[in-house]
């Protein structure tokens, strides 16, 4: 009997154990998980954890009593008067804050739904010339003798016109990239030019933001229509360059 009480004394009190487990779990959920989990999931995890802890401490009367002992002591014992009053003031304040925070109207702007690669039209007109986008290919690919020359010319076009937003690594991080919304396309990403045909790029470059269908939010895009600025040849050159630089291959007609 003597031995048993000594052993019990050295153990961490049950109440403290429960608090430590709940706190430890919270820290792991909040800071230990990468990428961070949403607050709603964290809340659910905490509910499960706290329920498990309460279940654990109330498995038999003996442990429930041990768990409740410090709580009851704070309420009954006048040695804990200051702590008792601290809790009795803090709890209503926290309750008030939570209710205020949940009921005060939040200002949340509407979410813009935007299709990043909307379906292209069947054909486009560029400076009076019609192009059938379903069969259009980059004519410079056949000119193997001048391939390197055309890529170099494309690089010149790119650095004089495109890098301001799309960046000199073609990763969409140009000097003005942070100032525009939606952000410029990242050509290094496998989700952009790597999954598109060259004719799609020709359309996007020539007609720019204003040429997008409405699901592509043409009013928001800062992509210029290059039709009045660049020649047809320059546009095909810059397309060649974009694929050469990133190492991506254009999607081909099957």
């Amino acid at each position, binding site marked *: 009997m003597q031995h048993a009480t000594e052993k019990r004394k050295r153990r961490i009190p049950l109440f403290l154990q429960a608090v430590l*487990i709940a706190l*430890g*779990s919270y820290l*792991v959920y909040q800071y*230990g*998980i*990468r990428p961070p989990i949403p607050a709603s999931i964290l809340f659910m995890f905490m509910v499960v*954890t706290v329920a*498990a*802890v309460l*279940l*654990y401490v109330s*498995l038999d009367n003996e442990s429930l009593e041990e768990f409740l002992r410090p709580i009851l002591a704070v*309420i*009954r014992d006048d040695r804990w008067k200051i702590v*008792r009053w601290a809790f009795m003031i803090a*709890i*209503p304040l926290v*309750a*008030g804050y*939570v*209710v*205020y925070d949940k*009921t*005060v*109207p939040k*200002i949340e*702007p*509407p979410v813009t*739904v935007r299709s990043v690669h909307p379906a292209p039209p069947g054909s486009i007109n560029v400076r009076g010339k019609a192009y059938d986008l379903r069969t259009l290919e980059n004519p410079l690919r056949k000119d193997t003798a001048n391939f390197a020359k055309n890529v170099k010319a494309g*690089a*010149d076009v790119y*650095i*004089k016109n495109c*890098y*301001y937003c799309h960046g*000199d*690594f073609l*990763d969409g*991080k140009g*000097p*003005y990239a*942070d*100032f*525009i*919304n939606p952000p410029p396309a990242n050509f290094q990403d496998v989700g952009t030019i790597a999954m598109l045909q060259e004719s799609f790029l020709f359309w996007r470059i020539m007609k*720019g*933001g*204003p040429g997008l269908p*409405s699901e592509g*939010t*043409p*009013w*928001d895009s*800062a*992509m*210029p229509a290059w039709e*009045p*600025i660049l020649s047809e040849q320059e546009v095909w050159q810059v397309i060649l360059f974009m694929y050469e*630089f990133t190492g991506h291959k254009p999607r081909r007609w099957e």
Partner: protein
Amino acid sequence: MSMKILAGGSLGVFGLAILASVLFSTPAHTQEPAKKTADQATTDEGKKIYDKYCAWCHGEKGAGDGPGATYQIPRPRDFTSGAYKFRFTPSGDPPLDEDIFKSVAEGFPGTSMPPWKHALTEKQMWAVVHYIKTFSDAFKDAKPKKIEIAKRISPSKESIEKGAKLYKDLKCWECHGDEGRGDGPSAKDLKDDWGNPIRATDLTQPWTFRGGSSHMDIFRNFTTGLNGTPMPSYADTNSDEDRWHLANYVRSMAPEKDPSAATLISSAPIKGPIPDDPESAAWKTAREGFLPFMPQIVEEPRHFTPMVTAAFVRSLYNDNEIAFLIRWSDPTESKDGAAVDAFAIQFPAREGEAGTKPYFLDGDEENPVMLWLWKQGAAGAVELLGKGLKATGPNPKAGTFTKTVASYNKGEYKLLVKYSLKDRPKGTVSFAPGAFIPVALQVWDGGNGEEGPKKGVTTWTWFTLEKPTPVSVYLYTVLAVVGAVVAQGWIVRRVRRS
């Protein structure tokens, strides 16, 4: 007892599982060892990388004359000179290898030079460093010595005050201006060693400091000077303490934390009249939004060399009026001539259907915009109708500006416009509280030759008039507090009696 062990055990397993998921989701750290010594193989590799990524702006021979250099201010570095701005070596000396490496890795904020650490490996960047050095004779037999950094003095009030006095005595204001906005009397015609125009840094915008915005970065600049620019070294003329005081003062000109672009500008409700004085306390109750400008490079004539980088916006409204208070840095006040300073706030011209907006650049024929334009020297703001970049004209349904107050002081504009909300014409934006309205800003710096389509622009962001908080919110809050007090009292009484 066995149940207890089971419960405890399962808790442990739960924790372990989470711990394991954390451990295994961390990406393995794979970094090639850095190559700090130059040999033929390294410079050869460096040339390959340089030709692919750097030559566009810095030129194949490193003279800073690549095809991309045409429109850049500041110009790309000319490596043949061996003059580098940001170094830990004495004034006039070539930089340390580490200095060049840091420039490549971190880039220069506010310029065309990006941080390459996101695209290149450490080994690749070191190879480029060694290749860049081959462009200049300055590195031949040079053994650059690292300057000693004196013990930092913390930015106390006394230190900042001493720094302010030094700023005056050393005539920093001649270029950087009395309040640091790069608007000093000598700022206009500054040239670098190559004869290119160069601007005095706006010290109130640390996020554009090329060499970094920490106290240490600023102290270093005072110690080494910026080679090739009019910014001298103060190592010989002033003590270490002086330079720390000065660094502390310069950093104190802007908040510690850089602002980030606002996605929502909100107008706060106010009871009674909206004050005409921008300094009045009522204006402080409105949240300030930060919006950076992109030069208009979308349609010809395009503008590649902007001056005004950003604007700060506040808004207040009451039943009769809505008001905007906007401030922005502009180093020159331009009142006369073709190019005068100007500012515009843009909204859709029509109460739009949800989900669509006019084109962000002055709208178009089908879906026009309303532009509230203020021009330096004009009597007040005017309302225009925009149907495209080159198609803006008077708005037949224009509203009324009840007040326009504009001031220019020490490199900063403050513009206050008030607009009547009474009797809005049918079909125009009604500015109803709670509605979300697209808003965009435009700015012209006459001193930088900006007029017409040559201007700074933002894309659309959201604007809303905040609804006053409903009384029910306070009611529920009070109820929650009272409820908690009562429930608590009941529990405590019960426990203490038992």
